[in-house]
């Protein structure tokens, strides 16, 4: 075992050990923690227990607006038949429970954890079908065609969300949000549930494979660096014009002032 002692003397040995330890812990943790993805697969049978817990949560947090049996009230729509996907999206993006109703209920930090969200979803699904939460495979962008996704995105989504998913204004104070934060699952759910001002893209208009391609486009675009420097928010020519004036003309005017104020070295008498 001489080689171990030799290795231990190397300057990088300490780092290597720490890294290895971290890797082992990581793998162990991944294996031990609940496999969230498969747990949400659409074909998983939700237990009676989940539904009961969901109903309890619902009557606490949601019934004031949506009614005791999710039948809807003056202030919020009925949730019967909206499906688990819609609940998972709304609660998972923190939109529900809604706080102060403005023009549009914004994304915020979710209040419920994944377990509770699942229970709520199970309860609403038990009331009458609707689109289920997509499986991990359905939303996996790794094998999808981002180029196809780009074409579909420009034809279906860019008019509201902008070419790079940076978001855009809609009428009446509503807005299509930036797509920087949505997870692949939420992107899929947004398409099948059509939250608020967004239309529903059901499986006949945009097939599941195409949805996956769109997810690939969105996730690749947002993580891709800007080869040309700072992306200026990726909102198009308005930001460029602003930069041209503020930085371009700004610097040039300063330069003009400096250059005209400069006197040649030789002092003159006045």
């Amino acid at each position: 075992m001489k080689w171990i002692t030799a290795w231990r003397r190397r300057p990088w040995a300490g780092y290597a050990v720490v890294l290895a330890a971290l890797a082992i812990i990581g793998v162990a943790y991944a294996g031990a923690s609940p496999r969230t993805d498969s747990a949400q697969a659409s074909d998983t049978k939700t237990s009676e227990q989940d539904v009961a817990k969901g109903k309890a949560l619902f009557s606490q947090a949601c019934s004031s607006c949506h009614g005791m049996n999710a039948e809807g009230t003056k202030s919020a729509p009925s949730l019967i038949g909206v499906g688990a996907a819609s609940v998972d999206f709304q609660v998972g993006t923190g939109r529900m429970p809604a706080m102060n109703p403005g023009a549009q209920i914004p994304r915020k930090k979710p209040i419920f954890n994944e377990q509770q969200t699942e229970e709520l979803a199970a309860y609403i699904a038990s009331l009458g079908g609707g689109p289920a939460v997509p499986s991990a495979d359905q939303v996996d962008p790794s094998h999808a065609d981002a180029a196809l996704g780009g074409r579909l995105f420009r034809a279906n989504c860019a008019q509201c969300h902008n070419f790079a998913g940076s978001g855009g204004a809609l009428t009446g104070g509503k807005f299509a949000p930036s797509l920087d934060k949505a997870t692949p699952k939420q992107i899929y759910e947004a398409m099948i549930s059509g939250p608020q001002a967004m239309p529903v893209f059901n499986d006949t208009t945009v097939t599941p494979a195409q949805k996956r391609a769109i997810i690939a486009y969105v996730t690749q675009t947002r993580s891709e660096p800007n080869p040309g420097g700072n992306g200026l928010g990726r909102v198009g020519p308005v930001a460029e014009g602003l930069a041209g004036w503020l930085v371009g003309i700004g610097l040039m005017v300063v330069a003009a002032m400096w250059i005209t104020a400069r006197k040649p070295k030789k002092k003159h008498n006045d």
Partner: protein
Amino acid sequence: MSTATPPKAIDGTIGFADERFGTAGFLRGKMKKVFPDHWSFMLGEIALYSFIILLATGTFLTLWFKPSMGEVIYHGSYTKLDGVNMSEAYDSTLRISFDVRGGLLMRQIHHWAAVLFLASIMVHMLRVFFTGSYRKPREVNWLIGLGLFTLGILEGLFGYSLPDDLLSGTGLRITQGVMQSIPVVGTYIFYFAFGGGFPGHDFISRLYTVHVLLIPGILLALVGAHFMILWHQGHTQFSGKNRTEKNVIGKPFFPVFMIKAGAFFMFTFAVTALLGTFAQINPIWLFGPYTPDSITAGSQPDFYMGFLEGALRIMPNWETNLWGHTIPWNVLVPALLPLGLIMTGAALWPFIEQWATGDKKIHNLADRPRNAPFRTAVGMTAVTFYGMLWLAGGNDILADKFHVSLYATTWFFRGAVFVGPVIAYVVTKRLCVGLQRSDAAELHHGVEAGVITMLPSGEFVEMHQPVKEDAEAVLRGKQELPAIEDAGEDANGIPAPSSRGPLGKARKALNNAFTADDISIGNGHGNGHGNGHGEHPEAGTGDHKELSRG
């Protein structure tokens, strides 16, 4: 440093040229040309230098750009578009961006230089307008400048349309709509320009010829004319000590100004290079290729087209049907009216001013904006009008960033485009008059010395000291605005022929507008001519050169 003859190196070159072309007198004269040094005189130069940068980088781009609508399937290094159908124009621009060494940098510098070119033309024009530098004898150069501005906008629009990406295609679609909206001939113009349907196959290649050959050629000729006239007439200068209508005080072209100009060119290049390196512009790979079924939020033109876009966005959806023909006011009015108003107004302005004031004198001294309240106020009115349309062109971005309703912004700008200019007019005029008053007060009572003394009576007063000589010269440089020789009424109460009729009345009214708010600085028309006319000291002080004109 006030050597009137250039050193050997230059003189030798001039001598060489002289022996062959007989140009010595001309060139020597030019070398001695004097440039006033106020920073605002450099603004036009930014435009010149960015134009040179545009020529250089544009030529680089022509080496790879393919102006063709021929359809190809992309297999370049930007994998996110792999296998997508696109035009050769778009394909080649992607290749310039990702596969040509330095290509993206060149594209970005070209585009940033275009932005800088038009922005600097605009500020340069504003400087000329607000100081009255367009007055006789410089009216022709003012018109040439307007021509350069208009052509620059067109050149930018065409360049923007070349890569055939989603935004440029959307822009072209609007251009096409504007062409077609012209009554009677619209459809023919459209078919002629596009050579058939939209987008067709011919348009991009035609645009290309116009963009790289036709307009740059005309621009070059106009820039040449602009500078020759400038060189002949000399710059205007602000009034100040020893400055008169008959001389120019500043730096001689050689060597001081030449070095400064060279350095300034380097600055311009540095700024465009800086922007080109660190700020992404027109990322066509994110926009994707143009297809008629696609559209994106944030579809905007470059800033110099923004005011037209804004006009289009806030125009109510009006159309009239005349004998089976639709007159689309909703496109026609925004496309032609604001541009027409601003450009025609600007072109006519020097002549309107001459007519209304009856002022046919040569003006080499620039006005301070406050001393011409009517002109300044009208200028601000136009600026506000333009500015409101401009902001309206970005209303979706404004609505998104400030979380207001898109409709609300549209309605806001519908009002603001009319109310804003009126407010600007009134406020500017008040400001000018106020500033004139304080100038007059300063001349008469001096400036506050910042020293407080107690009078024997116990009252505190602030000491005033007379204005410094330099500052006084500036204040006294104010030129009394000429009222028209008041034809008035003759002994029988009959108005003179020149002020009769609608035209005469209009002239009188305009004349009033020009002269009404003139606060006299008193003391017998102190106007900087005091030490000017007649005797013009030829000797410069220190490195400052002074030349008499003509």
